[in-house]
Every structure is written in structure tokens, then in C-alpha cells.
């Protein structure tokens, strides 16, 4: 009986070890395949395939960070946030509408790269509805129509909205939304303009 129990325990332990090892092997192979999967050389920006800690964790846990890790995760993301020099977190809504709408550039490679100096937009309609007049809005993100009407144009809402756009992972670990400020896609001033587009009572979002 005792021997039988020990055998079962041993087998269970072995089974677990084998599964974990297999997952680690696959993860290591993924990195090998990725490393050889892209063209090298000028204009390729291969640094983009190197993951930071956030991307690594979101990959390992497939975007479901264990609850005991979430606090540290979100604190790390919060520490990355930078604010506009003016201190104004809500800017010009009309300029914000333009930045919100503009297709985002920054594609690289040699086959069909964007102009490196092209002004970048947020391309927010790819995923979010906002101005109800824009029919062709995606639905990966939440709908933002009536955002300011619902949440008010308060300092709290403005701060939350700015931080959410700057680093979406501050409020939701492994959010699908890019960390637009932290990753250098948009400047703090551009983000403040988008905030205004979302909260200003004069913006079509809230009409």
C-alpha cells in the first residue's frame, strides 16, 4: 500500500514536471522561430521584436495575469506615465478629433514602409466608436460615444482618461489597447487633445 502510494505520488510529480518542461521548451522554440522569422538589416527595426517585461508577462499568461501579481504589475505601469509640461491634461478637442481619427503610421520594413517622419495619429476608430456620425468604427475597444456626458468633465475623469491612453495597462493588466504614450506612439500633448475630444461638452462625442 505504502509503496503503491509513493509510486502514484512519484508518477504525479513526474507528470507535472514533464508538462512544465514541455511548455518551457515550446516557449524557448517560439523565441528561436521569432529570432529567425524576420528580415535583418537596415530599415527593419528588429529591436521591435524584443519584448519588454510587460509584453513577456502578457505572453506567458496569455493576458490573464495571476491576481497576486496584478498590483505590482499596475504599479510598474503607472510609474511610466509622463504628463504634459503645461500640466494641462485636457487640451484642444478639435485637434484631438484629428489625432483620434488619423490613421497611425510607423510601419517599417523595406516592402511598404511609412514615411518615418509622418505625423502619427491614434487610429482610434479602428477599435472604438466615438462621434456617432462615424459609421465605420471598430468594436475591439469599448464604445466612447457620449463619454463625457456619462462620466462628466471632472478633474478625476480627465486624469483617468489621460492615464488610460498614456498607459492602458495602468488600469487593466494586458489590456488589448496599445500603451500609446509609453511606447512613444503619441506625445503627451496629443493625448491631452484626445482627452478633450472625449470629455468636452462641445465635442461631437457628447452631442
Amino acid at each position, binding site marked *: 500500500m505504502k509503496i503503491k502510494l509513493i509510486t502514484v505520488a512519484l508518477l504525479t510529480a513526474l507528470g507535472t514536471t514533464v508538462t512544465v518542461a514541455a511548455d518551457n521548451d*515550446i*516557449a524557448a*522554440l*517560439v523565441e528561436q*522561430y*521569432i529570432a*529567425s*522569422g*524576420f*528580415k535583418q538589416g537596415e530599415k*527593419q*527595426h*528588429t529591436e*521591435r*521584436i*524584443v*519584448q519588454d517585461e*510587460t*509584453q513577456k508577462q*502578457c*505572453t506567458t499568461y*496569455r*493576458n490573464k495575469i495571476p491576481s497576486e501579481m496584478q498590483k505590482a504589475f499596475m504599479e510598474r505601469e503607472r510609474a511610466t506615465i509622463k504628463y504634459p509640461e503645461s500640466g494641462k491634461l485636457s487640451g484642444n478637442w478639435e485637434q484631438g478629433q484629428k489625432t483620434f481619427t488619423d490613421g497611425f503610421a*510607423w*510601419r*517599417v*520594413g*523595406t*516592402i*511598404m514602409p511609412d514615411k518615418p517622419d509622418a505625423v502619427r495619429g491614434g487610429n482610434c*476608430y*479602428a*477599435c472604438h466608436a466615438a462621434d456617432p456620425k462615424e*459609421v*465605420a*468604427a*471598430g*468594436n*475591439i475597444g469599448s464604445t466612447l460615444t457620449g463619454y463625457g456626458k456619462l462620466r462628466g468633465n471632472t478633474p478625476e475623469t480627465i486624469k483617468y482618461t489621460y492615464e488610460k491612453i498614456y498607459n492602458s495597462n495602468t488600469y487593466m493588466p*494586458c489590456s*488589448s489597447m*496599445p*500603451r500609446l504614450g509609453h*511606447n*512613444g*506612439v503619441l506625445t503627451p500633448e496629443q493625448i491631452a487633445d484626445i482627452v478633450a475630444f472625449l470629455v468636452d461638452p462641445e465635442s461631437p462625442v457628447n452631442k
Partner: protein
Amino acid sequence: MSRLTIAGLVTSALLAGVAFAAEEPNADAYREMTYGDRDANPALLVIDRGEELFKEKRGPKNVSLEQCDFGLGAGVLKGAYAQLPRYFKDTDRVQDAESRLLTCMTELQGFTVEELTKQTFANDKRNEDNTDLEALTVYIAAQSDGMKINAPAEHPKEQEAIKVGEGIFWRRQGPLDFACATCHADDKKRIRLQNLGNFSKAGVDVQKTMSAWPTYRVSHAAVRTMQHRMWDCMWQMRLPDAQYGSPMTVALIAYLNAQGKDGTYALPGMSR
């Protein structure tokens, strides 16, 4: 059809979509009207060119591709595409149709990989005709029209490719923090009006996509292959150019075909 008529069709189709389903705009009706007719698929012309290229004696060795083995034996094309990617003993790796094509064009015909991959895809911004690689691929693929997606998963390297492909599918990277899964792991999502399949689960979404490529893309005025689709997704994620026929792209395709098993090929496809 004049530009004005097309614009009118788009507008009325969009309006119809909005009128019938205010919550979920979609352009399905427009798409059906525009490219629902299989006999009007411009890819049929590219397939003819691919067949000529396949049977013509070419390259430094002046031989055709008729002895190329796509997995079912030398020269057998019928049903071969439906059973790719698969493990090939001679190269000791898992290959999709396009990486296999490179093998045959170098081994049989004597071309070099460098010259073959100098320009893999037609540049739609310059309104170019399809490249030889694209024409050959769609010809080979079309020989599996009506058959079921049935890539083997018996060899350990085939199993590895599928597993690794799944890992790549979930890997987040780049300035947008995107993985394939960011757009393709939930039901009924869209980028603007473009529907996005949920490829994280086996079933209809992934079957529908994998069985319709290579496809004639109306917006590119060119046939596009699965290798182009992989490059395009990476490009949209703001990543470097995916290497044509690399183990990375082949692993992704192996994963997607495993998810889409038993979907029925309708080739060539036609899409936005």
C-alpha cells in the same frame, strides 16, 4: 463599372446594413454583390499564368516543376495543398506550399533563394502584376479546390510547428503591444467594418479564412497568398518584414490550418 456606380453601391450597401442592424454595421451585402461571382474572379487569369510557369522549362537547369514533390509524391498536385504544411524528409523541416516551392525552384531548377525572394509580392501601390511566386502558388493551391483542410499532425516536427505557431500567435511585441491574438481571439470583433475571425478556437471562423486563401484581393488588384497574409499582419503590427517561407510563418500557418481542419477549400478566393 464606373467609379460612381461603385461608390453608389458602397453607400447603399452600407446604408442597408445600418438600416437593418443599427447595432452591428457590416458590409457583407456589399461584398456579396461585388465579388460573390466565382467565375468573375480575376485570379483565374493568374492561375493560367501559374500553370504555364509550372510546366515551362526554366532556370539554370532548364527543367519544369513537374517533378516537384509537394508531399503526395513527385508531380502530384491534386490535393497536395490541402495537406500542407507537412514534414519533408529531404529538407528535414516542416514546409508550407511556398517554402516548398522555393526548395523545388532551387533544387530542381537551379535558381538561388536570393534571386527568388528579391521581390516576393507584387507591389499594389505600383499596380504591379503578380510575381511568379504568387502565380505559381495560386495555381498549386487551386488544385485542392473543393477538398478539406487536412494538414498532417503525426510527425513530431509537425506537432512542434503547430504548438510553436500557437505560441507565436499569443506573443505580444512591438510599439503597439500587439499579438495576433489581440485581433483574432474573440468572437464578432471588427477593425472598422472589417470582420475579424476568432482563430484561437477551432471552427467556422478559421475554416472560412484558411479555405479561401490564396485570394484575389480587390483592394490590391492582385492575388495574395498565405505568406503575404502573414507578412501583412506583421507589417500592420508595425513589425519588421516577415521572412518569406521562414519557420516562423510556416508554424503560424500550421497552427491556423490545424485550427481550421476540415474546412472546405473554395479556391481561388476573392475578398476585400
